[in-house]
């Protein structure tokens, strides 16, 4: 099971933090700091696996990380996951991000955190790997984004309709309409404000 997925930059600032097990807010921040501390000490040409820090489960849990330019992608997993498989999963994740934001960079992750969460939600669910086929993931994410966009168009409509009607300048309604022998009494409606 994947316990947590963290993305932070070379200075330890978190860019994405997703925990699949419950920790208190303070513990979460401590875990991020501790993980950054452990991972930043590593050389460039050592292996990508680390035994986890004390806070996130100690020796049973491993940190599997990949360093791309200014960002660290860290997956904290327990012993039931295949380490090399997770390493490949990180690669698939980054490639998907690259496809969704053209030539992704750190700024994209900063300003579109919610989108990154949505993409991640298509890949990992409840701590387990859901989908690894990049095209499939991208198709689903695109469809969901389209749904959001179409709603935004419709969602704007009621508000605009109301404001349009409020601004209408209705002339005074006649009290009585006399057409020949027919007399229609118009009820006294409250003004439509």
């Amino acid at each position: 099971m994947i316990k947590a997925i963290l993305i932070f930059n070379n200075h330890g600032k978190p860019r994405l933090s997703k925990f699949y097990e419950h920790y208190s807010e303070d513990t979460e921040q401590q875990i991020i700091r501790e993980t950054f501390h452990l991972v930043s000490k590593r050389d460039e040409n050592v292996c990508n696996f680390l035994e986890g820090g004390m806070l996130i489960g100690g020796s049973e849990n491993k940190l599997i990380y990949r360093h791309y330019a200014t960002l660290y992608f860290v997956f904290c997993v327990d012993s039931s996951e295949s380490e090399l498989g997770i390493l490949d999963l990180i690669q698939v994740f980054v490639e998907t991000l690259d496809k969704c934001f053209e030539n992704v960079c750190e700024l994209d992750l900063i300003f579109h955190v919610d989108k990154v969460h949505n993409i991640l939600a298509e890949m990992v669910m409840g701590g387990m790997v859901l989908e690894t086929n990049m095209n499939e993931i991208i198709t689903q994410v695109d469809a969901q984004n389209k749904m959001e966009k179409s709603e935004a168009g419709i969602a704007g409509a009621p508000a605009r309709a109301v404001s349009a009607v409020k601004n209408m300048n209705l002339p005074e309604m006649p009290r009585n309409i006399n057409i020949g022998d027919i007399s229609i009494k118009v009820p006294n409606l409250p003004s439509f404000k």
Partner: protein
Amino acid sequence: MAEVMLPLWFSHEAKELYSNQSIQEAADQDMSPSVRLQEMIRVIRGARTQGEERGVIQRECAAIRAQFRQADNGTRSHNLAKLLYVHMLGYPAHFGQMECVRLIASPRYNEKRVGYLGAMMLLDENQDASLLITNSIKNDLSHSSQYVQSLALCTLACMGSAEMCRDLAPEIDRLLRASNSYIKKKAALCAVHIVRKVPELGELFTPAARALLSEKNHGVLHGAVVLITELCERNIDTLEQFRKVVPELVQIMKGLVMSGYSPEHNVAGISDPFLQVRILRLLRILGRNNDTASDSMNDLLAQVATNTDSSKTAGSAVLYETVLTVMDIKSESGLRVLAVNILGRFLLNNDRNIRYISMTSLQKIVQTDHNAVQRHRGTIVDCLKDQDASVKRRALELSLALVSAVNIRSLMKELLLFLSSCPPELRAHTASGIFNAAERYAPSQRWHIDTILHVLTTAGGDVRDETVPNLIQLITTATDLHCYTVHKLYRALVTDISVQSLVQVACWCIGEYGDLLLTGECEETEPVQVTEDDVLDALETVLQSHMSSPATRGFALTATMKLSTRITHNVDRIRSIVSIYGSCIDVELQQRAVEYNALFKKYDHMRAAVLERMPVIDKSSPGHTNGESAGGTIKEMEPTKLTNELVLPKEPANQVCDLLDLLGGPGEPLHPTPAPSNTVKGPVMSTSGGDLLDLLGGLEVTPAPPCVKVYEKNGVTLKLQTDKQTDTGMNITLTATNSTEADITSLTLQAAVPKSVQLQMKAPSGDVIPAHGLGLVTQTVLLNNPNKVSLKMRVRVCYTSQGTLCQDMVQIDSFPSPTW
């Protein structure tokens, strides 16, 4: 091995999208939800100090809170998105919880999306608010849009509590059977979460899981395999059931392995390695301890092992999983050999990741296939010298597992070398591993002592507390090496007194075997000219140094005292040292010094006997294992013994003389008082003196060995039983009972023995014997008979019965033998 490294670059200028102007324009143009979030992010990032950032965030949070309280406007989702960003940075965001609940209930998709995301980040099963979303989730699970359904599934799988899972499990089951593949795969993983929370619901999902195996969609298959794995791990019966699907799984695997290039699932030339790895893992669980299942897998595993290309990580992952499966099931021997060879190849791989993985897997199989792993010992030992800390750790674990009687010497050399250069976090583990290995396979005692001393000098600060008494016990058993040991330890002490454990052992040895040190001759090592002053100087340095812990100083003081009987010239110096410490601030040291002082002044005649060489400590005695408790009782007994010491001399001296007369001779080493025993004066450490107090093994109460009545008068009965008997001594217990109407008070027992026999009486359990046989008083007596004379004992019984003082004498000529 170069995987594609994506060039992520961080540059403000490169992306115009994020400049201030463009964000403002976007805000004006359309109402896309993320704009306000971006604005806030830009502002937060513009803060130059931590304080400024906090100020900005507090303002934003206040604004968000105000907006939450207002009625519905179109900006609720933006506000929650902003709040989640702030939460990620580490600021409190719990006031957003109710907003999440509200947003989830909204009919609009983008609000639901943010609401569910917020629920996953801010809510958990401990919060009450999480129960409120159960109903929303239930409704959304039957929503017409699959994306809404998937949101609900995702959230339930992430933070669903046990009650929520129980409520919604039937829904999930329905989705598992009848929906599209997108939903099915999500429902499968959601079911895994439910089973983890509420294991009993596993039975509910079993039929659906079984049916999912015939799906073609890889995502669904993957989810199904994960679900089946979880079910089998939790329930043995389910495991039995699913054994029947092994042929089906084998078919699926074959299809994956033998199929040609499939662009959808291809990762570096392997067709869906993630699914392959999952299936292999499930096969492992199903084939464990079961011959038929294992047989049906054999061919497949051989095929995968030979056909998979391991030049990329994906292939290695599959191979690694195959090897683990082969080793875990009942595979045929040819296959096992193949598997271990693959691991050996991995071990020589240049890629550090692969080496790490192969060592992890070797660790798992070292218990069962020890010889196969031994073949790779050389490579593993080389990995100890790798620069990578993770690889070092793996190599250490594996080396410790590979230690055996055959390779102990060479392997220990490597381990000791490693200890001197290993990273600090591995030191304690290495030291204890070395000790265990040395204890089990030491080829000789001298080698054993040398190894332990080496470890103490290199890493003495990181060893456990039991090392010191264990080492002391080891030294006492190696009787022919005392001279060598004490020379070595003296040299170590003179060089460096900072390592407490080493100093403690050295002090103890010098105290015990100081005479061997001073004679100057030793076969095993170069002799060194040591004078008495040198030795006392060394011990005094330890006593006065600021680096010495209180326990170490206790050791040094006792050692100094012991030397008073082993050296000839400088006894006055020792006397002065001991009297100085009689006013030491440390209470433990002060008590010892005062007692030693008393030994010099009043009990000088006993000093030699008290400070004699200690006998070999028996490691398996109860005193050894009940460390604290035995130590505790001894500390309690000390004051009673001392009070007895004070009480009895007050008695009229003529009584003592009477005993002298009876036994016909002056100058008898009479011990009517329980003397302070040398075990008490030994290095009683406050933490673990237990095993050195072994001589009190006689205190154990044995179940009814034969009792001999030695005295019966006036209703008072005195019985004797032998607890322990050796060639040179015995421990006996005297039991007094009272069958009269009234209690017997002031009971005292005194004993006298022939010359050359040493007597030690322990404190009695009390001095009042209750009436009517309702209770008894016991007293243990230890006899030490080194010259093996025939043992006789005279016991004088004094007590007050109904107001009258009675005194009697009993002679005991023969002692009963113990039952064992």
